[in-house]
């Protein structure tokens, strides 16, 4: 692993970084180098230390120990590294070009909007990155934010680009476009570090694959010299088997009884633009209805609508046949509905409260005779912590938990009481193989217990694995609902989703 330094664009030597709070080493003695103009896929489960390593590379964090050298760059000041974050960071009150300008090298104090916009536009045309520059940050979807970050990196002509799971929030079509773009960027001589869970993507794209596990570099090898099995073994460890991706769970025929959730002719528009058009759907007990779509194309809006965060201009929402004239999150929860939001950190968790307090949210009335509410709360939390296999203490602040554990926490909270209706949005965002497997198992289990499950996702595989019936949402319009099976496959869903993808 010791290439001549002159060919390398990054050389890492014994990079170590531990977290003060728990003393766990997120990066443990990692050494490798990246060649000029190569795509290196960096793989690993949640909490393997990928993000920390990338933060160190981009200069966002400092390593406790070890050295980081950019041979091509005399300043050594991370200037040539650009990062496209997984959790997008962007100022909501600024519009796109202002956000891009933020990172611009500041030769002068004064911003020249015309000049800047025209150079951004040039890059847009060059790389085919369509984006309305005058949109405000808060209006952007995850995919658009990603595009904005990429534009910024290209404008600055970053030679080293780091992508942190860029396809996680993209549709199939968008993802493919992105991968093509990456190849083109490579062709221009840029070095690309690509973090991903998806083995397929890594093989499709990368020259080499590096695998991290528990902060250590497990392997780094050219793609041609290693089998996918070996990669996954390096990621998950020996002995663990990769379960069959597509679980052929028993598909029930749902009853013709009153639907648990019914939407009738919903119309919703926001600031003049129509977001949902004449949308109707029925969801019965014991089935999983998968709605595939792109977040910005109505999926996020549908999520808000069903949970009562926004109100439709017209149409009816019925729960168990009963009309709810004025749905709010409060009333929505009162009907005992479980909800796993796409936005886990804001809607799904309170980072500054304890794990116990987060777990108790839906179960505020606690039974048990002895002790105060707090002791009961801790007892209860302990039960759920062990049930959900969360690594954490009841009185630990959630902020100190890893992303995977926060996810587990939300899951066990929402699922343990066998809800009659479960709304899940983007369930496997940021999950590694095994967690994703477990989650899918839990969801199908919930169905077996006669829960009605509404699955909103951009992940076509997920839809195909889980759903009994499938519909596709594009441009605010919902397609016919059809049973999973022959009618729907990757191709048909993908086409549906992207056919209307005008962004």
């Amino acid at each position: 692993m010791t290439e001549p330094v002159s060919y390398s664009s990054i050389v890492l030597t014994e990079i170590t970084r531990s977290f003060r709070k728990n003393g766990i080493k997120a990066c443990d003695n990692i050494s490798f180098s990246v060649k000029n103009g190569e795509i290196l896929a960096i793989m690993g489960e949640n909490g393997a230390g990928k993000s920390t390593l990338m933060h160190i590379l981009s200069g966002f964090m400092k390593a406790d120990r070890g050295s980081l050298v950019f041979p091509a760059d005399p300043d050594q000041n991370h200037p040539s590294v650009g990062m496209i974050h997984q959790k997008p960071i962007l100022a909501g009150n600024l519009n796109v070009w202002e956000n891009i300008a933020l990172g611009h090298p500041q030769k002068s104090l004064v911003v020249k909007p015309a000049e800047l916009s025209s150079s951004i536009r040039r890059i847009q045309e060059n790389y085919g990155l369509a984006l309305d520059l005058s949109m405000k940050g808060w209006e952007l979807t995850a995919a658009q934010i990603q595009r904005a970050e990429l534009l910024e990196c290209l404008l600055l002509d970053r030679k080293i680009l780091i992508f942190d799971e860029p396809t996680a929030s993209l549709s199939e079509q968008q993802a493919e476009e992105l991968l093509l773009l990456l190849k083109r960027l490579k062709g221009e001589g840029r070095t690309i570090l690509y973090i991903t869970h998806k083995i397929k993507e890594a093989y499709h794209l990368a020259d080499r694959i590096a695998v991290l596990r528990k902060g250590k570099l497990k392997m780094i090898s050219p793609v041609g010299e290693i089998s996918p099995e070996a990669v996954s073994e390096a990621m998950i460890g020996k002995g663990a088997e990769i379960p069959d991706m597509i679980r052929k769970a028993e598909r029930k025929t749902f009853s013709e009884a009153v639907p648990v959730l019914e939407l009738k002719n919903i119309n919703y528009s926001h600031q003049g633009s129509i977001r949902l058009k004449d949308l109707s759907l029925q969801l019965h007990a014991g089935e999983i209805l998968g709605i595939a779509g792109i977040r910005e194309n109505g999926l996020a809006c549908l999520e808000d609508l069903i949970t009562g965060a926004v109100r439709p201009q017209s149409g009816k929402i019925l729960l168990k046949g009963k009309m709810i004239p004025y749905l709010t999150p409060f009333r929505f929860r009162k009907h005992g509905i479980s909800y796993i939001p796409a936005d886990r950190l804001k809607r799904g968790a309170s980072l500054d409260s304890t794990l116990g307090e987060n777990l108790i949210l839906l179960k505020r009335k606690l039974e048990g005779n002895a002790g105060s509410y707090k002791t009961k709360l801790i007892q209860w939390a302990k039960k759920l912590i062990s049930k959900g296999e969360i690594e954490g203490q009841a009185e630990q602040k959630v902020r100190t938990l890893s992303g995977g554990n926060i996810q587990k926490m939300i899951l066990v909270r929402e699922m343990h009481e066998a809800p009659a209706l479960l709304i899940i949005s983007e369930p496997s965002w940021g999950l590694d193989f095994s967690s994703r497997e477990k989650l899918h198992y839990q969801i199908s289990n919930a169905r077996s217990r006669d829960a009605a499950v509404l699955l909103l996702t951009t992940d076509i595989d997920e839809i195909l694995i889980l759903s009994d019936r499938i519909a596709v949402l594009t441009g605010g319009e919902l397609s016919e609902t059809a049973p999973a099976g022959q009618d729907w496959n990757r191709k048909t869903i993908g086409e549906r989703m992207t056919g209307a993808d005008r962004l």
Partner: protein
Amino acid sequence: MISGILNNAAPLLLAAMGGLFTELAGVLNIAMEGMILTGAFTAILVSNFGGGLLTSTLCAALAGLLTAWVFSLTSFKLRGNIFITGLGINILMPALTASFSQKIFGNQGIIHPGSLRHIPSTAGLDLYTWGTLACTGAVMFILYRTYPGLTLRASGRQKDLLKSKGISPEKVQTAAVLISGMMCGISGAILSLRLGAYVPGMSAGKGWIALVAIYLGYKKIPGIVAACIFFTAAEAIANQAQGILQIPPSLILSFPYFFTLMGLGLFAILKKRRQ
């Protein structure tokens, strides 16, 4: 009448512009009151020792800056609670100026230099009002058309964003506090130089009202300008009303606050309706 209101709104607007910097940086700046008073005192002090308008104003800005520096030091470097340190500045500065005044003039109260300095004016608006208007334009330009301005507007409460761009949020906040200190200092100078005297407590809640104006204007410059003018106009009307209406004068004093509150409420209701 209108030029009078504009003139009166100038110190408030200037303080609010300064406060906008801190507010955008996510700092609740309640120390503005103390900074204004410090500026007012310094301006008269310098003026008393022969300083011209410009010198006095600049020294007031400097004094505001110093006050702001103490405020930022205790709030950021020592990581004090911004509310308590702000109150601390508001208690400390009037007392300090009084002690200074005692040392210099042997008098803790009103400082009244021999001659009033004439403040040139055109079209009914004096130099300071024009200055404030120019400054408002400049702030608009800085915030929307310069890189530091963009950074400031982006910072808000998202510290991660700045960190990812390699900017220290603390530095941004400190800079914002220092700028607000300077502007509050000048705001104080306007108050005292126009009057030709320093009166203890003469800021009379302007720092607070500036803060209210920032919120009332939804942290947007046109909104803040409108809020400042609205409040000043309400006060002017109340002043006039004392001479006309048969309502007890003490009661009229409450009107500007209630008018402003009603304005705030109506605006919020309209906004909600529109959604």
